Protein backbone atom coordinates (compact mmCIF):
# COMPACT_ATOMS: atom_id res chain seq x y z
CA UNK A 1 0.00 0.00 0.00
CA UNK A 2 2.76 2.34 0.98
CA UNK A 3 4.75 1.38 -2.05
CA UNK A 4 1.81 1.97 -4.29
CA UNK A 5 1.07 5.45 -2.98
CA UNK A 6 4.76 6.20 -3.05
CA UNK A 7 4.87 5.12 -6.63
CA UNK A 8 1.88 7.26 -7.46
CA UNK A 9 3.48 10.22 -5.78
CA UNK A 10 6.62 9.81 -7.75
CA UNK A 11 4.63 9.46 -10.95
CA UNK A 12 2.68 12.53 -10.07
CA UNK A 13 5.82 14.52 -9.67
CA UNK A 14 7.27 13.25 -12.92
CA UNK A 15 4.15 13.97 -14.90
CA UNK A 16 3.80 17.32 -13.25
CA UNK A 17 7.33 18.25 -14.12
CA UNK A 18 6.87 17.22 -17.73
CA UNK A 19 3.56 19.00 -17.97
CA UNK A 20 5.14 22.20 -16.69
CA UNK A 21 7.38 22.13 -19.68
CA UNK A 22 5.12 20.82 -22.41
CA UNK A 23 1.69 22.03 -21.38
CA UNK A 24 1.62 25.09 -23.58
CA UNK A 25 3.76 23.77 -26.45
CA UNK A 26 1.42 20.81 -26.84
CA UNK A 27 -1.55 23.12 -27.16
CA UNK A 28 0.32 25.31 -29.58
CA UNK A 29 1.32 22.31 -31.69
CA UNK A 30 -2.29 21.24 -32.17
CA UNK A 31 -3.42 24.77 -32.82
CA UNK A 32 -0.77 25.26 -35.46
CA UNK A 33 -1.24 22.02 -37.32
CA UNK A 34 -4.98 22.32 -37.54
CA UNK A 35 -4.72 25.90 -38.67
CA UNK A 36 -2.19 24.94 -41.32
CA UNK A 37 -4.54 22.26 -42.58
CA UNK A 38 -7.29 24.82 -42.83
CA UNK A 39 -4.97 27.05 -44.82
CA UNK A 40 -4.08 24.22 -47.18
CA UNK A 41 -7.74 23.55 -47.59
CA UNK A 42 -8.41 27.18 -48.29
CA UNK A 43 -5.85 27.08 -51.07
CA UNK A 44 -7.52 24.07 -52.61
CA UNK A 45 -11.13 24.42 -51.67
CA UNK A 46 -12.02 27.14 -54.09
CA UNK A 47 -10.69 25.18 -57.01
CA UNK A 48 -12.56 22.06 -55.95
CA UNK A 49 -15.88 23.74 -55.52
CA UNK A 50 -15.73 25.37 -58.90
CA UNK A 51 -14.36 22.50 -60.93
CA UNK A 52 -17.88 21.24 -61.48
CA UNK A 53 -18.84 24.29 -63.47
CA UNK A 54 -16.04 23.71 -65.91
CA UNK A 55 -17.33 20.31 -66.85
CA UNK A 56 -20.08 21.80 -68.98
CA UNK A 57 -17.62 23.03 -71.55
CA UNK A 58 -14.74 20.68 -70.97
CA UNK A 59 -15.30 18.77 -74.19
CA UNK A 60 -14.17 15.45 -72.80
CA UNK A 61 -15.38 13.39 -75.74
CA UNK A 62 -13.26 15.38 -78.13
CA UNK A 63 -10.20 15.04 -75.94
CA UNK A 64 -10.70 11.33 -75.75
CA UNK A 65 -10.97 11.01 -79.50
CA UNK A 66 -7.91 13.08 -80.29
CA UNK A 67 -4.69 11.30 -81.14
CA UNK A 68 -2.56 14.40 -81.28
CA UNK A 69 -1.95 14.61 -77.56
CA UNK A 70 0.75 12.69 -75.78
CA UNK A 71 0.07 9.01 -75.30
CA UNK A 72 0.09 7.24 -71.95
CA UNK A 73 1.50 3.88 -70.89
CA UNK A 74 -0.40 2.43 -67.95
CA UNK A 75 2.02 0.26 -65.99
CA UNK A 76 0.44 -2.35 -63.73
CA UNK A 77 2.73 -4.39 -61.50
CA UNK A 78 1.00 -7.62 -60.56
CA UNK A 79 1.76 -10.31 -58.05
CA UNK A 80 -0.81 -13.04 -57.56
CA UNK A 81 -3.70 -11.00 -58.79
CA UNK A 82 -5.67 -13.75 -60.48
CA UNK A 83 -8.90 -12.58 -58.87
CA UNK A 84 -8.97 -9.06 -60.26
CA UNK A 85 -6.42 -8.81 -63.02
CA UNK A 86 -8.65 -9.59 -66.00
CA UNK A 87 -11.40 -7.20 -64.99
CA UNK A 88 -8.84 -4.59 -64.16
CA UNK A 89 -7.03 -4.83 -67.48
CA UNK A 90 -10.28 -4.81 -69.42
CA UNK A 91 -11.34 -1.65 -67.65
CA UNK A 92 -7.95 -0.07 -68.28
CA UNK A 93 -8.13 -0.83 -71.98
CA UNK A 94 -11.59 0.72 -72.03
CA UNK A 95 -10.45 4.02 -70.51
CA UNK A 96 -11.53 7.07 -72.42
CA UNK A 97 -8.38 8.31 -74.04
CA UNK A 98 -7.01 8.83 -77.52
CA UNK A 99 -3.80 6.87 -77.27
CA UNK A 100 -2.78 4.58 -74.47
CA UNK A 101 -1.39 1.14 -73.81
CA UNK A 102 -1.51 -1.17 -70.82
CA UNK A 103 1.74 -2.76 -69.65
CA UNK A 104 1.20 -5.52 -67.12
CA UNK A 105 4.33 -6.73 -65.36
CA UNK A 106 3.87 -10.13 -63.79
CA UNK A 107 6.25 -10.19 -60.85
CA UNK A 108 6.73 -13.93 -60.77
CA UNK A 109 3.20 -14.75 -59.68
CA UNK A 110 2.68 -18.23 -58.32
CA UNK A 111 -1.04 -18.30 -58.97
CA UNK A 112 -3.03 -18.26 -62.18
CA UNK A 113 -2.47 -14.58 -62.99
CA UNK A 114 -0.79 -15.41 -66.28
CA UNK A 115 -3.27 -18.12 -67.20
CA UNK A 116 -6.35 -16.00 -66.71
CA UNK A 117 -4.82 -13.16 -68.68
CA UNK A 118 -3.79 -15.46 -71.46
CA UNK A 119 -7.24 -16.92 -71.67
CA UNK A 120 -9.10 -13.65 -71.50
CA UNK A 121 -6.99 -11.78 -74.04
CA UNK A 122 -5.76 -14.62 -76.21
CA UNK A 123 -2.13 -13.81 -75.50
CA UNK A 124 0.70 -15.13 -77.63
CA UNK A 125 4.43 -14.90 -76.89
CA UNK A 126 6.49 -12.44 -78.94
CA UNK A 127 10.16 -11.73 -79.21
CA UNK A 128 9.97 -8.09 -78.23
CA UNK A 129 13.14 -6.57 -76.86
CA UNK A 130 12.73 -4.61 -73.68
CA UNK A 131 15.38 -1.88 -73.47
CA UNK A 132 17.27 -1.28 -70.25
CA UNK A 133 16.74 2.45 -69.96
CA UNK A 134 16.25 2.00 -66.25
CA UNK A 135 18.42 -0.51 -64.45
CA UNK A 136 16.40 -3.49 -63.32
CA UNK A 137 17.19 -6.54 -61.23
CA UNK A 138 14.66 -9.25 -62.04
CA UNK A 139 15.26 -11.26 -65.18
CA UNK A 140 12.60 -10.97 -67.81
CA UNK A 141 11.13 -14.32 -68.77
CA UNK A 142 8.97 -13.48 -71.76
CA UNK A 143 6.64 -10.98 -73.37
CA UNK A 144 3.09 -11.61 -74.54
CA UNK A 145 0.63 -9.59 -76.59
CA UNK A 146 -2.91 -10.36 -77.79
CA UNK A 147 -3.09 -12.47 -80.89
CA UNK A 148 -4.70 -9.78 -83.03
CA UNK A 149 -1.49 -7.79 -82.79
CA UNK A 150 -3.42 -4.57 -82.39
CA UNK A 151 -4.84 -4.45 -78.89
CA UNK A 152 -2.43 -2.32 -76.95
CA UNK A 153 -1.76 -4.70 -74.14
CA UNK A 154 1.66 -6.05 -73.21
CA UNK A 155 2.34 -8.65 -70.54
CA UNK A 156 5.92 -8.90 -69.35
CA UNK A 157 6.69 -11.85 -67.11
CA UNK A 158 9.72 -11.72 -64.91
CA UNK A 159 11.25 -13.24 -61.84
CA UNK A 160 9.91 -12.06 -58.57
CA UNK A 161 11.84 -8.99 -57.47
CA UNK A 162 9.30 -6.68 -55.90
CA UNK A 163 6.86 -4.00 -56.92
CA UNK A 164 9.37 -1.25 -57.52
CA UNK A 165 11.54 -3.33 -59.78
CA UNK A 166 8.47 -4.51 -61.66
CA UNK A 167 7.44 -0.93 -62.26
CA UNK A 168 10.92 -0.17 -63.54
CA UNK A 169 10.59 -3.02 -66.01
CA UNK A 170 7.26 -1.54 -67.00
CA UNK A 171 8.91 1.83 -67.58
CA UNK A 172 11.41 0.15 -69.85
CA UNK A 173 8.70 -1.61 -71.80
CA UNK A 174 6.54 1.50 -72.07
CA UNK A 175 6.30 3.06 -75.50
CA UNK A 176 4.47 6.29 -74.75
CA UNK A 177 5.99 9.51 -73.40
CA UNK A 178 3.84 9.54 -70.25
CA UNK A 179 3.77 6.70 -67.75
CA UNK A 180 1.27 6.11 -64.97
CA UNK A 181 1.66 3.46 -62.29
CA UNK A 182 -1.40 1.90 -60.84
CA UNK A 183 -2.13 -1.14 -58.75
CA UNK A 184 -4.11 -4.05 -60.09
CA UNK A 185 -6.81 -3.57 -57.53
CA UNK A 186 -7.48 0.07 -58.34
CA UNK A 187 -10.51 1.11 -60.30
CA UNK A 188 -9.91 4.18 -62.39
CA UNK A 189 -12.47 6.78 -63.29
CA UNK A 190 -13.21 6.48 -67.02
CA UNK A 191 -11.84 9.99 -67.59
CA UNK A 192 -8.80 9.51 -65.34
CA UNK A 193 -6.26 9.68 -68.15
CA UNK A 194 -7.88 12.76 -69.64
CA UNK A 195 -7.83 14.49 -66.26
CA UNK A 196 -4.28 13.72 -65.29
CA UNK A 197 -2.71 14.37 -68.69
CA UNK A 198 -4.19 17.86 -68.74
CA UNK A 199 -1.35 19.48 -66.76
CA UNK A 200 1.16 17.85 -69.10
CA UNK A 201 -0.71 19.14 -72.13
CA UNK A 202 -1.13 22.62 -70.69
CA UNK A 203 2.51 22.97 -69.78
CA UNK A 204 4.52 20.33 -71.63
CA UNK A 205 7.99 21.62 -70.94
CA UNK A 206 7.55 22.09 -67.21
CA UNK A 207 5.20 19.51 -65.74
CA UNK A 208 7.08 16.33 -64.92
CA UNK A 209 4.73 14.55 -62.55
CA UNK A 210 1.07 14.70 -61.61
CA UNK A 211 -1.35 13.00 -59.27
CA UNK A 212 -5.08 13.04 -58.68
CA UNK A 213 -7.61 12.34 -55.98
CA UNK A 214 -7.68 8.81 -54.62
CA UNK A 215 -10.74 7.51 -52.84
CA UNK A 216 -11.64 4.42 -50.88
CA UNK A 217 -13.55 1.78 -52.79
CA UNK A 218 -14.65 -0.41 -49.89
CA UNK A 219 -18.38 -0.76 -49.79
CA UNK A 220 -18.90 0.59 -53.26
CA UNK A 221 -20.77 -1.42 -55.79
CA UNK A 222 -18.41 -2.32 -58.55
CA UNK A 223 -19.59 -4.41 -61.47
CA UNK A 224 -17.16 -5.70 -64.07
CA UNK A 225 -14.55 -3.14 -63.26
CA UNK A 226 -16.98 -0.21 -63.34
CA UNK A 227 -18.08 1.90 -60.44
CA UNK A 228 -21.82 1.50 -60.36
CA UNK A 229 -22.79 2.90 -57.00
CA UNK A 230 -20.74 4.83 -54.50
CA UNK A 231 -21.46 3.69 -50.99
CA UNK A 232 -19.73 3.96 -47.71
CA UNK A 233 -18.21 0.88 -46.16
CA UNK A 234 -20.09 -0.86 -43.42
CA UNK A 235 -17.53 -0.80 -40.66
CA UNK A 236 -16.45 2.27 -38.76
CA UNK A 237 -12.84 1.48 -39.44
CA UNK A 238 -13.45 1.82 -43.16
CA UNK A 239 -15.63 4.87 -42.76
CA UNK A 240 -13.01 6.68 -40.76
CA UNK A 241 -10.43 5.93 -43.42
CA UNK A 242 -12.73 7.35 -46.08
CA UNK A 243 -12.88 10.54 -44.06
CA UNK A 244 -9.12 10.51 -43.64
CA UNK A 245 -8.58 10.18 -47.38
CA UNK A 246 -10.97 12.99 -48.15
CA UNK A 247 -9.26 15.32 -45.77
CA UNK A 248 -5.59 14.63 -46.00
CA UNK A 249 -5.09 13.33 -49.49
CA UNK A 250 -7.64 15.30 -51.38
CA UNK A 251 -7.24 18.72 -49.93
CA UNK A 252 -3.80 18.53 -48.45
CA UNK A 253 -2.19 17.58 -51.71
CA UNK A 254 -4.11 20.06 -53.75
CA UNK A 255 -3.10 22.86 -51.45
CA UNK A 256 0.56 21.96 -51.69
CA UNK A 257 0.31 21.79 -55.45
CA UNK A 258 -1.13 25.27 -55.67
CA UNK A 259 1.58 26.50 -53.39
CA UNK A 260 4.13 24.93 -55.68
CA UNK A 261 5.78 22.48 -53.32
CA UNK A 262 4.03 19.14 -53.74
CA UNK A 263 6.41 16.46 -52.56
CA UNK A 264 4.12 13.48 -52.36
CA UNK A 265 2.11 11.85 -55.10
CA UNK A 266 0.10 8.81 -54.25
CA UNK A 267 1.59 5.52 -55.27
CA UNK A 268 -1.89 4.36 -56.10
CA UNK A 269 -1.95 6.71 -59.09
CA UNK A 270 0.98 8.77 -60.23
CA UNK A 271 1.72 9.98 -63.74
CA UNK A 272 5.25 10.86 -64.78
CA UNK A 273 7.12 11.81 -67.88
CA UNK A 274 8.97 8.75 -69.06
CA UNK A 275 12.15 10.62 -69.97
CA UNK A 276 12.39 12.13 -66.50
CA UNK A 277 11.86 8.73 -64.91
CA UNK A 278 14.72 7.38 -66.96
CA UNK A 279 16.88 10.34 -66.03
CA UNK A 280 16.45 9.77 -62.32
CA UNK A 281 16.66 6.00 -62.61
CA UNK A 282 13.11 4.90 -61.86
CA UNK A 283 11.93 3.64 -58.50
CA UNK A 284 14.37 2.59 -55.82
CA UNK A 285 13.73 -1.08 -55.00
CA UNK A 286 15.40 -0.78 -51.62
CA UNK A 287 13.20 2.01 -50.41
CA UNK A 288 10.09 1.42 -48.39
CA UNK A 289 8.33 4.69 -49.14
CA UNK A 290 9.32 4.30 -52.75
CA UNK A 291 6.73 6.63 -54.22
CA UNK A 292 7.63 9.44 -51.88
CA UNK A 293 11.28 8.71 -52.48
CA UNK A 294 10.80 8.96 -56.24
CA UNK A 295 9.18 12.37 -56.08
CA UNK A 296 11.85 13.66 -53.71
CA UNK A 297 14.52 12.38 -56.04
CA UNK A 298 12.85 14.13 -58.95
CA UNK A 299 12.74 17.38 -56.99
CA UNK A 300 16.38 17.14 -56.07
CA UNK A 301 17.43 16.23 -59.58
CA UNK A 302 15.48 19.02 -61.23
CA UNK A 303 16.59 21.66 -58.75
CA UNK A 304 20.21 20.67 -58.96
CA UNK A 305 19.95 20.75 -62.71
CA UNK A 306 18.41 24.23 -62.53
CA UNK A 307 15.43 23.08 -64.52
CA UNK A 308 12.13 24.89 -64.57
CA UNK A 309 9.68 22.19 -63.55
CA UNK A 310 6.41 21.50 -61.79
CA UNK A 311 4.82 18.67 -59.87
CA UNK A 312 1.10 19.07 -60.18
CA UNK A 313 -1.99 17.78 -58.44
CA UNK A 314 -5.26 17.49 -60.32
CA UNK A 315 -8.31 18.32 -58.26
CA UNK A 316 -10.38 15.48 -59.69
CA UNK A 317 -11.10 11.95 -58.60
CA UNK A 318 -9.07 9.54 -60.66
CA UNK A 319 -8.75 6.32 -58.78
CA UNK A 320 -10.48 4.16 -56.20
CA UNK A 321 -8.45 1.87 -54.04
CA UNK A 322 -9.07 -0.75 -51.39
CA UNK A 323 -8.31 0.31 -47.83
CA UNK A 324 -7.49 -2.12 -45.01
CA UNK A 325 -10.52 -3.63 -43.38
CA UNK A 326 -8.99 -5.03 -40.22
CA UNK A 327 -6.99 -3.25 -37.57
CA UNK A 328 -4.17 -5.71 -38.07
CA UNK A 329 -3.67 -4.85 -41.72
CA UNK A 330 -4.19 -1.16 -41.05
CA UNK A 331 -1.55 -1.28 -38.38
CA UNK A 332 1.02 -2.83 -40.63
CA UNK A 333 0.17 -0.36 -43.39
CA UNK A 334 0.51 2.71 -41.20
CA UNK A 335 3.68 1.51 -39.57
CA UNK A 336 5.15 0.84 -43.00
CA UNK A 337 4.12 4.23 -44.32
CA UNK A 338 5.69 6.02 -41.42
CA UNK A 339 8.82 4.02 -41.73
CA UNK A 340 8.99 4.92 -45.40
CA UNK A 341 8.37 8.56 -44.55
CA UNK A 342 11.16 8.55 -41.98
CA UNK A 343 13.70 6.82 -44.16
CA UNK A 344 13.03 9.07 -47.12
CA UNK A 345 13.07 12.26 -45.09
CA UNK A 346 16.31 11.16 -43.53
CA UNK A 347 17.80 10.27 -46.88
CA UNK A 348 17.07 13.74 -48.18
CA UNK A 349 17.91 15.56 -44.96
CA UNK A 350 20.41 17.62 -46.89
CA UNK A 351 17.52 19.42 -48.51
CA UNK A 352 15.90 20.35 -45.23
CA UNK A 353 15.97 24.09 -44.56
CA UNK A 354 18.40 24.42 -47.40
CA UNK A 355 17.62 27.59 -49.38
CA UNK A 356 19.05 26.00 -52.47
CA UNK A 357 15.94 23.84 -52.61
CA UNK A 358 13.45 26.67 -52.54
CA UNK A 359 9.94 26.05 -51.36
CA UNK A 360 10.52 22.33 -51.13
CA UNK A 361 13.43 22.66 -48.75
CA UNK A 362 12.25 25.67 -46.80
CA UNK A 363 8.53 24.99 -46.46
CA UNK A 364 7.41 21.53 -47.50
CA UNK A 365 10.16 19.51 -45.86
CA UNK A 366 10.05 21.29 -42.49
CA UNK A 367 6.28 20.84 -42.52
CA UNK A 368 6.65 17.13 -43.17
CA UNK A 369 9.32 16.74 -40.54
CA UNK A 370 7.29 18.40 -37.85
CA UNK A 371 3.68 17.77 -38.78
CA UNK A 372 3.95 14.39 -40.39
CA UNK A 373 7.01 12.70 -38.95
CA UNK A 374 7.22 13.98 -35.42
CA UNK A 375 3.47 14.54 -35.14
CA UNK A 376 2.60 11.10 -33.78
CA UNK A 377 5.09 11.59 -30.99
CA UNK A 378 3.53 14.85 -29.96
CA UNK A 379 0.04 13.51 -30.39
CA UNK A 380 0.54 10.34 -28.52
CA UNK A 381 2.64 11.78 -25.75
CA UNK A 382 0.24 14.68 -25.40
CA UNK A 383 -2.68 12.33 -25.11
CA UNK A 384 -0.97 10.01 -22.65
CA UNK A 385 0.32 12.83 -20.51
CA UNK A 386 -2.98 14.60 -20.33
CA UNK A 387 -4.93 11.44 -19.63
CA UNK A 388 -2.46 10.32 -17.02
CA UNK A 389 -2.15 13.76 -15.56
CA UNK A 390 -5.88 14.11 -15.29
CA UNK A 391 -6.19 10.74 -13.62
CA UNK A 392 -3.47 11.63 -11.19
CA UNK A 393 -4.96 15.01 -10.43
CA UNK A 394 -1.95 16.82 -11.82
CA UNK A 395 -3.84 18.30 -14.70
CA UNK A 396 -6.95 20.30 -13.96
CA UNK A 397 -10.24 19.83 -15.75
CA UNK A 398 -10.00 23.08 -17.63
CA UNK A 399 -6.70 22.24 -19.15
CA UNK A 400 -7.85 18.76 -20.01
CA UNK A 401 -10.94 20.13 -21.74
CA UNK A 402 -8.83 22.74 -23.49
CA UNK A 403 -6.56 20.03 -24.74
CA UNK A 404 -9.51 18.03 -26.04
CA UNK A 405 -10.92 21.08 -27.77
CA UNK A 406 -7.71 22.07 -29.45
CA UNK A 407 -6.49 18.61 -30.30
CA UNK A 408 -9.72 16.84 -31.21
CA UNK A 409 -12.39 19.48 -31.44
CA UNK A 410 -10.39 21.61 -33.82
CA UNK A 411 -9.39 18.54 -35.78
CA UNK A 412 -13.03 17.62 -36.12
CA UNK A 413 -13.74 21.08 -37.44
CA UNK A 414 -10.99 20.72 -40.02
CA UNK A 415 -12.48 17.43 -41.10
CA UNK A 416 -15.96 18.87 -41.29
CA UNK A 417 -14.72 21.70 -43.48
CA UNK A 418 -13.18 19.09 -45.75
CA UNK A 419 -16.49 17.26 -45.89
CA UNK A 420 -18.26 20.50 -46.75
CA UNK A 421 -15.90 21.11 -49.64
CA UNK A 422 -16.43 17.56 -50.81
CA UNK A 423 -20.19 17.96 -50.65
CA UNK A 424 -20.04 21.21 -52.57
CA UNK A 425 -17.77 19.82 -55.25
CA UNK A 426 -18.00 16.13 -56.05
CA UNK A 427 -20.71 14.98 -53.70
CA UNK A 428 -19.94 11.39 -54.46
CA UNK A 429 -21.94 9.92 -51.62
CA UNK A 430 -25.56 10.42 -52.58
CA UNK A 431 -27.33 8.69 -49.71
CA UNK A 432 -28.31 10.63 -46.63
CA UNK A 433 -27.43 7.60 -44.57
CA UNK A 434 -23.85 7.66 -45.84
CA UNK A 435 -23.56 11.38 -45.30
CA UNK A 436 -24.66 10.98 -41.69
CA UNK A 437 -22.21 8.14 -41.21
CA UNK A 438 -19.39 10.27 -42.60
CA UNK A 439 -20.19 13.11 -40.23
CA UNK A 440 -20.24 10.73 -37.32
CA UNK A 441 -17.01 9.14 -38.48
CA UNK A 442 -15.39 12.59 -38.46
CA UNK A 443 -16.00 12.75 -34.75
CA UNK A 444 -15.27 9.12 -33.98
CA UNK A 445 -11.90 9.39 -35.66
CA UNK A 446 -10.65 11.27 -32.64
CA UNK A 447 -11.91 8.73 -30.16
CA UNK A 448 -9.31 6.05 -30.47
CA UNK A 449 -8.46 5.86 -34.16
CA UNK A 450 -6.06 8.78 -34.17
CA UNK A 451 -4.38 7.60 -31.03
CA UNK A 452 -4.03 4.08 -32.39
CA UNK A 453 -2.58 5.20 -35.72
CA UNK A 454 -0.21 7.51 -33.89
CA UNK A 455 1.06 4.56 -31.89
CA UNK A 456 1.41 2.35 -34.95
CA UNK A 457 3.33 5.03 -36.78
CA UNK A 458 5.69 5.25 -33.86
CA UNK A 459 6.10 1.49 -34.00
CA UNK A 460 7.18 1.75 -37.61
CA UNK A 461 9.60 4.51 -36.87
CA UNK A 462 11.08 2.62 -33.96
CA UNK A 463 11.44 -0.51 -36.03
CA UNK A 464 13.39 1.46 -38.59
CA UNK A 465 15.63 3.05 -35.99
CA UNK A 466 16.38 -0.37 -34.56
CA UNK A 467 17.27 -1.60 -38.02
CA UNK A 468 14.62 -4.29 -38.18
CA UNK A 469 13.91 -5.80 -41.54
CA UNK A 470 10.71 -4.51 -43.10
CA UNK A 471 7.64 -6.71 -42.99
CA UNK A 472 5.33 -6.63 -45.97
CA UNK A 473 1.67 -6.42 -45.21
CA UNK A 474 -0.77 -9.07 -46.30
CA UNK A 475 -3.91 -7.71 -47.80
CA UNK A 476 -5.93 -10.49 -49.29
CA UNK A 477 -7.76 -9.42 -52.37
CA UNK A 478 -11.49 -9.48 -52.00
CA UNK A 479 -12.08 -9.04 -55.66
CA UNK A 480 -14.15 -6.25 -57.06
CA UNK A 481 -17.70 -7.45 -57.06
CA UNK A 482 -18.14 -7.60 -53.35
CA UNK A 483 -19.65 -4.95 -51.17
CA UNK A 484 -19.90 -6.83 -47.92
CA UNK A 485 -17.49 -6.28 -45.09
CA UNK A 486 -14.64 -8.56 -45.80
CA UNK A 487 -13.06 -11.13 -43.64
CA UNK A 488 -9.54 -10.43 -44.67
CA UNK A 489 -6.51 -12.58 -44.28
CA UNK A 490 -8.27 -15.85 -44.80
CA UNK A 491 -5.00 -17.15 -45.99
CA UNK A 492 -2.89 -15.48 -43.39
CA UNK A 493 0.35 -16.90 -44.64
CA UNK A 494 -0.14 -15.93 -48.21
CA UNK A 495 3.06 -14.08 -48.78
CA UNK A 496 1.84 -11.28 -50.92
CA UNK A 497 3.98 -8.56 -52.17
CA UNK A 498 1.38 -6.00 -51.25
CA UNK A 499 2.22 -2.45 -52.02
CA UNK A 500 4.29 -0.53 -49.60
CA UNK A 501 3.10 2.68 -51.04
CA UNK A 502 2.34 5.88 -49.25
CA UNK A 503 -1.04 7.17 -50.28
Amino acid at each position, binding site marked *: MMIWSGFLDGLRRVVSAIMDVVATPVLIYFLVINTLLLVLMGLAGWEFVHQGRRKSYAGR*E*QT*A*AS*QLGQGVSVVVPAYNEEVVIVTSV*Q*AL*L*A*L*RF*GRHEVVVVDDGSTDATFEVLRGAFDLVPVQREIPSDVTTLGTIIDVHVPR*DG*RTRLVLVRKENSGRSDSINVGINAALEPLVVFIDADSILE*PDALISVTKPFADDPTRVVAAGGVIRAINGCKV*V*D*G*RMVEVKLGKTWLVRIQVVEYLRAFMLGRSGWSRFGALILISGAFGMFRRDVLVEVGGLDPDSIGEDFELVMRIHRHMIRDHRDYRVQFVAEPVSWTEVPVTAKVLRSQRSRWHRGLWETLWKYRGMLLNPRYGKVGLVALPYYWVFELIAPVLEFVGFVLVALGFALGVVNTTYALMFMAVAYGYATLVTLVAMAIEELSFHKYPRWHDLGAILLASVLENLGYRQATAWWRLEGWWASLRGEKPVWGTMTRQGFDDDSPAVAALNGDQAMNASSRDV
Partner: protein
Amino acid sequence: MVTELVKTRIVVADDDQDILDLVVFKLTQAGYDAVPVTDGVAALAAIESGLPRLAILDVMMPGLSGMDVLRKVRANEATKDLDVILLTARARDADVDAGFATGASDYVIKPFSPRELMHRVNAVLARGDR
Protein backbone atom coordinates in the same frame (compact mmCIF):
# COMPACT_ATOMS: atom_id res chain seq x y z
CA MET B 1 -55.27 -16.71 -89.27
CA VAL B 2 -53.37 -13.75 -87.93
CA THR B 3 -49.67 -13.75 -88.64
CA GLU B 4 -47.84 -11.69 -86.13
CA LEU B 5 -45.04 -9.67 -87.59
CA VAL B 6 -41.85 -10.42 -85.71
CA LYS B 7 -39.93 -7.23 -85.33
CA THR B 8 -36.23 -7.36 -86.02
CA ARG B 9 -34.38 -7.12 -82.76
CA ILE B 10 -31.49 -4.70 -82.43
CA VAL B 11 -29.37 -4.30 -79.30
CA VAL B 12 -28.12 -0.76 -78.67
CA ALA B 13 -25.29 -0.16 -76.21
CA ASP B 14 -24.06 3.27 -75.09
CA ASP B 15 -23.22 4.67 -71.67
CA ASP B 16 -24.59 8.03 -72.81
CA GLN B 17 -28.30 8.08 -71.99
CA ASP B 18 -29.04 10.79 -74.55
CA ILE B 19 -27.65 8.78 -77.43
CA LEU B 20 -29.31 5.65 -76.18
CA ASP B 21 -32.73 7.33 -76.01
CA LEU B 22 -32.25 8.88 -79.41
CA VAL B 23 -31.20 5.74 -81.24
CA VAL B 24 -33.81 3.58 -79.55
CA PHE B 25 -36.50 6.07 -80.47
CA LYS B 26 -35.35 6.21 -84.07
CA LEU B 27 -35.25 2.44 -84.37
CA THR B 28 -38.64 2.01 -82.75
CA GLN B 29 -40.17 4.54 -85.07
CA ALA B 30 -38.79 2.55 -87.98
CA GLY B 31 -40.43 -0.59 -86.70
CA TYR B 32 -37.53 -2.36 -85.04
CA ASP B 33 -37.44 -3.95 -81.62
CA ALA B 34 -34.72 -1.93 -79.91
CA VAL B 35 -33.10 -3.28 -76.74
CA PRO B 36 -31.13 -0.60 -74.86
CA VAL B 37 -28.23 -1.37 -72.53
CA THR B 38 -25.77 0.99 -70.87
CA ASP B 39 -22.57 -1.01 -70.71
CA GLY B 40 -20.52 -3.69 -72.42
CA VAL B 41 -21.31 -6.58 -70.13
CA ALA B 42 -25.04 -5.98 -70.35
CA ALA B 43 -24.64 -5.77 -74.11
CA LEU B 44 -23.01 -9.20 -74.22
CA ALA B 45 -25.72 -10.63 -72.04
CA ALA B 46 -28.46 -9.11 -74.20
CA ILE B 47 -26.80 -10.41 -77.34
CA GLU B 48 -26.34 -13.90 -76.03
CA SER B 49 -29.83 -14.23 -74.65
CA GLY B 50 -31.84 -12.16 -77.12
CA LEU B 51 -30.03 -13.25 -80.31
CA PRO B 52 -30.64 -9.99 -82.14
CA ARG B 53 -30.03 -9.47 -85.85
CA LEU B 54 -27.88 -6.44 -85.25
CA ALA B 55 -26.02 -4.68 -82.46
CA ILE B 56 -25.12 -0.99 -82.40
CA LEU B 57 -22.20 -0.53 -80.01
CA ASP B 58 -20.55 2.54 -78.61
CA VAL B 59 -16.80 1.94 -78.36
CA MET B 60 -15.82 4.00 -75.35
CA MET B 61 -17.88 2.43 -72.60
CA PRO B 62 -16.27 2.03 -69.17
CA GLY B 63 -15.46 -1.47 -67.96
CA LEU B 64 -15.83 -3.41 -71.18
CA SER B 65 -15.43 -1.41 -74.36
CA GLY B 66 -17.44 -1.87 -77.54
CA MET B 67 -14.38 -3.34 -79.24
CA ASP B 68 -14.08 -5.97 -76.52
CA VAL B 69 -17.74 -6.82 -76.89
CA LEU B 70 -17.24 -7.16 -80.62
CA ARG B 71 -14.27 -9.43 -80.08
CA LYS B 72 -16.17 -11.65 -77.72
CA VAL B 73 -19.16 -11.77 -80.04
CA ARG B 74 -16.97 -12.86 -82.93
CA ALA B 75 -15.26 -15.45 -80.81
CA ASN B 76 -18.52 -17.05 -79.70
CA GLU B 77 -19.85 -19.72 -82.07
CA ALA B 78 -23.45 -18.81 -81.38
CA THR B 79 -23.08 -15.13 -82.11
CA LYS B 80 -20.19 -14.88 -84.52
CA ASP B 81 -22.33 -13.91 -87.47
CA LEU B 82 -24.04 -11.06 -85.71
CA ASP B 83 -23.93 -7.79 -87.62
CA VAL B 84 -22.34 -5.06 -85.57
CA ILE B 85 -22.25 -1.34 -86.21
CA LEU B 86 -19.72 0.60 -84.16
CA LEU B 87 -20.84 4.08 -83.16
CA THR B 88 -18.01 6.13 -81.77
CA ALA B 89 -16.18 9.44 -81.51
CA ARG B 90 -12.88 7.77 -82.40
CA ALA B 91 -12.47 9.02 -85.92
CA ARG B 92 -8.86 8.39 -86.85
CA ASP B 93 -7.98 6.05 -89.68
CA ALA B 94 -6.28 3.71 -87.28
CA ASP B 95 -9.45 3.42 -85.22
CA VAL B 96 -11.61 2.77 -88.27
CA ASP B 97 -9.11 0.19 -89.52
CA ALA B 98 -9.05 -1.53 -86.17
CA GLY B 99 -12.85 -1.55 -86.04
CA PHE B 100 -13.25 -3.24 -89.38
CA ALA B 101 -10.33 -5.55 -88.74
CA THR B 102 -12.03 -6.80 -85.60
CA GLY B 103 -15.11 -7.60 -87.61
CA ALA B 104 -17.44 -4.63 -87.52
CA SER B 105 -20.03 -4.49 -90.28
CA ASP B 106 -19.99 -0.71 -90.31
CA TYR B 107 -18.42 2.20 -88.50
CA VAL B 108 -20.32 5.40 -87.71
CA ILE B 109 -18.48 8.39 -86.34
CA LYS B 110 -19.91 10.73 -83.71
CA PRO B 111 -21.29 13.35 -84.11
CA PHE B 112 -23.56 11.36 -86.37
CA SER B 113 -26.61 11.95 -88.49
CA PRO B 114 -29.49 9.81 -87.19
CA ARG B 115 -30.87 9.59 -90.72
CA GLU B 116 -27.58 8.27 -92.02
CA LEU B 117 -27.41 5.78 -89.19
CA MET B 118 -30.80 4.41 -90.20
CA HIS B 119 -29.67 4.05 -93.81
CA ARG B 120 -26.70 2.05 -92.64
CA VAL B 121 -28.79 -0.09 -90.35
CA ASN B 122 -31.12 -0.92 -93.20
CA ALA B 123 -28.23 -1.59 -95.54
CA VAL B 124 -26.44 -3.91 -93.12
CA LEU B 125 -29.61 -5.84 -92.42
CA ALA B 126 -30.38 -6.10 -96.11
CA ARG B 127 -26.86 -7.45 -96.74
CA GLY B 128 -27.37 -10.02 -94.07
CA ASP B 129 -30.66 -11.14 -95.56
CA ARG B 130 -29.13 -12.25 -98.78
